Each structure stands twice: as structure tokens, then as C-alpha cells.
């Protein structure tokens, strides 16, 4: 499936709920289900600045695709992290660089990606794109 198809799926899942509480319950569920990041990656250098909730992001590059692992100490953030991994992990740098996480806006959680929010999510998206950019350059040189 393309990133966009997955985003569409997420949007449909969430649109089933009218009540914000149900949306957040789903996020919390997703957060709870997310496999924890390997403890050896839960280190300072993988931590993304966000004043209130912390996010750890680890990546690996193989066969032209980037795989991300990530986690957060806040559950709602972890739920959003799970969704971001769903769309961005195991993708080519090009796919990552050309897709915006529009679903967050469309499921009515835009505020979580606003630059004034200190939850680290916006920084995580930026960091994923930076990795993509770096690997794209490396791949271009490699060929």
C-alpha cells in the first residue's frame, strides 16, 4: 500500500468516532500496542527534544528503505508515534520526503503537530525527513 492509502485507512478508522474521547481511547490503545523500542536504542542520542513528553527514534537503512523504531513516555504521543511509524517505516527516502502526515490534521488532532506544542511529535517528523534526506543523498552517490 502507498503511504497515502494507509493514511486514508487511518482517517477512516478515526472518522467512525464522533466523540473525542473515543478517538483518544483508540490512540491510547495504539500506544499500548506499540512494541517497545529495543532498550539499547533508548539513549540520549536518539532522544528528541520535547519539553514534556520524550520521544526516542531509531532508524536503519537497508535495501533502499528506512525502518524506524520509536517510542514515547506519554501514551497519547506513543499512539501518534505508532501511526507515524505505520506510514513512514519501511519506506524509501523518496516516499518519506514526498508525503506529509496529513492524517493528523484530518482526524482532528492537528494541535499535536503545531510548532508551539512541546510534545516532540513535530520534531520527530522533521527528524525522520532529515534521515530520509541523508539516505537519499547517500544512495544517489552510491549509484
Amino acid at each position, binding site marked *: 500500500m502507498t503511504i497515502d492509502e494507509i493514511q486514508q485507512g487511518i482517517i477512516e478508522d478515526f472518522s467512525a468516532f464522533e466523540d*473525542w*474521547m473515543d478517538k*483518544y*481511547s483508540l490512540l*491510547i490503545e495504539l500506544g499500548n500496542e506499540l512494541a517497545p523500542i529495543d532498550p539499547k536504542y533508548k539513549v540520549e542520542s536518539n532522544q528528541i527534544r520535547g*519539553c*514534556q*513528553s*520524550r520521544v526516542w527514534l531509531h532508524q536503519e537503512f537497508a535495501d533502499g528503505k528506512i525502518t524506524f523504531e520509536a517510542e514515547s*513516555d*506519554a*501514551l*497519547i*504521543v506513543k499512539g501518534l508515534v505508532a501511526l507515524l511509524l505505520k506510514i513512514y517505516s519501511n519506506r524509501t527516502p523518496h516516499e518519506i520526503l514526498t508525503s506529509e502526515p496529513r492524517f493528523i490534521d484530518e482526524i482532528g488532532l492537528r494541535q499535536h503537530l503545531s510548532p508551539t506544542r*512541546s*510534545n516532540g511529535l513535530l520534531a520527530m517528523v522533521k527528524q525522520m525527513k532529515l534521515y530520509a534526506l541523508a539516505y537519499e543523498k547517500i544512495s544517489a552517490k552510491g549509484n
Partner: protein
Amino acid sequence: MSISIHMNPDLFKIRKDFPILDQKVNGKPFIYLDNAATSQRPQQVIDRMNEFSHRFNGNIHRATHFMANKTTEAFEESREMVRNYLNAVEPAEIIFTHGTTESINLVAFSFGEAFISKGDEVIVTEMEHHANIVPWQMMCERRGAGLKIVPFGDNGVLDLDQIDKLITDKTRILAVTHVSNTLGTVNPITEIIAKAHLKNVPVLIDGAQAAPHFSIDVQALDCDFYAFSGHKMYGPTGIGVLYGKRKWLDLMPPFLGGGEMIDRVTFSKTTYNEIPYKFEAGTPDYLGAIGLGAAIDYLNRQDKPMIERYERELLLESTLKLKQIDGLKIYGEAPEKAGVVSFNIDGIHPFDLGTLLDQMGIAVRTGRLCADPVMDHFGVENMVRASFAFYNTVEEIEALYIALIRLKAMF
């Protein structure tokens, strides 16, 4: 609002004075429980500032025209109102700053330049807001002095015995908060000041969380400096106060340089104005000072003993309620406590709680509360904090309680 009105018969009138309270947020009635971060402004403050924007505005001091004189008069009237609010000896001891943080930085810098040298010591406590730690750290580093810390116990009470041990003949100043912005503790500052003065150590009181709620008498306290912020006491942002005893202020060199703080400028030698002007460099925030004056005027018109009693009721009520929640831990249970309740619920991240409460129209603060050492003391990364003002209601506390119960079930 029946329970609240029972305790605070003016409540209905008071809430009408704060237009911001009467609205919906995220579709729910707005409940504002983040008063320790910043308070809301009554219409009277807004009106007074508008009057000066609409009718009277001229840069203050040294002017011959009507607008400047009207503004200067109002500015100096505000200074007199602050003097009266703190019961300072004279208006010259009231310096307008831009907030508690600037007030403390002013003292750290100017007192430091005058009185602190290599090997000297400064004492603060473990429960201070960063604003009452970092300026001292910076100054100590510059002057080669050391910082000593008065610890607190898990109940949020300062270990006063430690003060006697920490004060040595190298101690030059002690800085302590009147009310802790995380633990709510009302510190026994009269006793602390007496202890310090016994050994000739002057004391700065961080009054950011006290000035909005309690009557302050700097002469009775005998403190050497007292600092607070306008925006936490129903005034505008950007204005604050430093009270200082003349004997210190006269001896301290200026902090910032610029207009009004000088007497005469030449390139070879500049002489400085008298206090308070010596410490008010540049165009003061006279609009903010006028707004703060209006806020004090508003407070003076309230039934203060009743309000103090009522705010205590809000604290008791919220403490009782929150303790009924399983797994909820309150940080700070000093016998003398102001309307601040910081807590965590087992297994729920404060950020999640804050986010979900916000969905329910309830504003609380979450995070490190600008008090890293308090977080470290309890070994937590963050806390949730509810803090009250006299316009809050028991029903709002009930709503917080119900919301927390509901949210807990989601995790």
C-alpha cells in the same frame, strides 16, 4: 455555584468581572486552574489600560505636556499603591521591573557587584523556582562565590535547622520563596528572616506566588528584598516589582544603563539618579504599571480576609477530593499551604492527563513547573498542577475530580 457562593458570597459578582471565564473551550465550559502560571485580568484592569491608550498617553517624566503629566501621575500613583500594598516605608523603595525574574536578576547582579566576592556564599532552597536559582548561579560563577542549598522534606517543609548550619561568616545573602509554586508550601519567612538577620545576612523573598493571595507587610517581615509579578496578580504581563530596603538600594550600583537612571552623562564620567530611578533604565512599562495599579485597586476593594479563607477552602476541598482517587499522589503536604496542588496518577503520563483535561475544557499545568530540583527530589519527570484563584469554584474542583476519574478509566 451553590457551595461556592455559600463560602464566598461575592463570587457571582467577582466572576462577572473576569470576562474570560465565561466561555466554552473545546465545547465545554471553561475551567481555569492554572492560576499559578498566570492569572486572568478583571475588566477593571482592561478598562484602565484602555483609558490610557484612548485618552492619556505620553512618555513619562521630564516632560512639560499634559499627556506626559497624566501618564507620569498615574505611573507614580501605581508606585504608591504598590508601596501601600507591601507597606514599604517609601515609594522610592518600589522599583518597577518586568517581572519576578527581572527583579531577582537585578538583585543578583547589583547586590553581587557591590557585596559578593570570591569565596563568599549565597543560600537558596531546594524548592525554588528556576528564577530564584539561575540568577544566583550565574552571579556566583561570575564572582567566584558558592551556592548552598536548604533542603526540604518529602512533606514539602523546609528543614529550618539546616539554615542555621548553612549560614557561615561567608554567607552574604539568602533567597527563599514565600510560597512554593510546585509544593504550595507557605514558608515561615518571618522565622527564616529572623534567623538570617541574627547573623547579619540579608534576605530576598520571591513573592511571585504569595503577593496575589496574601497580605504582605515588608516592614513587619523585615525582609530586605521582595519580588513579584503583575501577571500573576490579575495585572498585565511584562510588569513586576522589586521592593528593596533603601539602605541596600542606595549602596547597590545600577543594573541596566540608559535613560532616566542617570543624573548626568559625559563620556568621561556618568553619575546616576536616585532610587527608584537609578534602577529603572529606559522607558518603563508605564502602561503595564498602570494596569498593575488597577489590579491592586481591584484587590483592595475585595473582602480580603474572606478571600483568603475562601482560597483555603478551595485548597482543602481539592486536596480531599483528589486524595479519593486511587493511585493519585500529591506532592507537598505542608501544614501551611497555598492554593496549589501538584500531583501524579500512577501509570499515567502528566502530558496525557493535561491533554485530555484540556479536551474537557479544564486548564491545568503539566511539566517540570520550572522547578527541576523539586522534580529530582521526588524522582519524577513531570507533574500535573492545579492552582486556584478567588474566582474559582468548588464546582470546578468537583469537575476536575470527575474528569480525572473518567480519564483514569481510559488507561
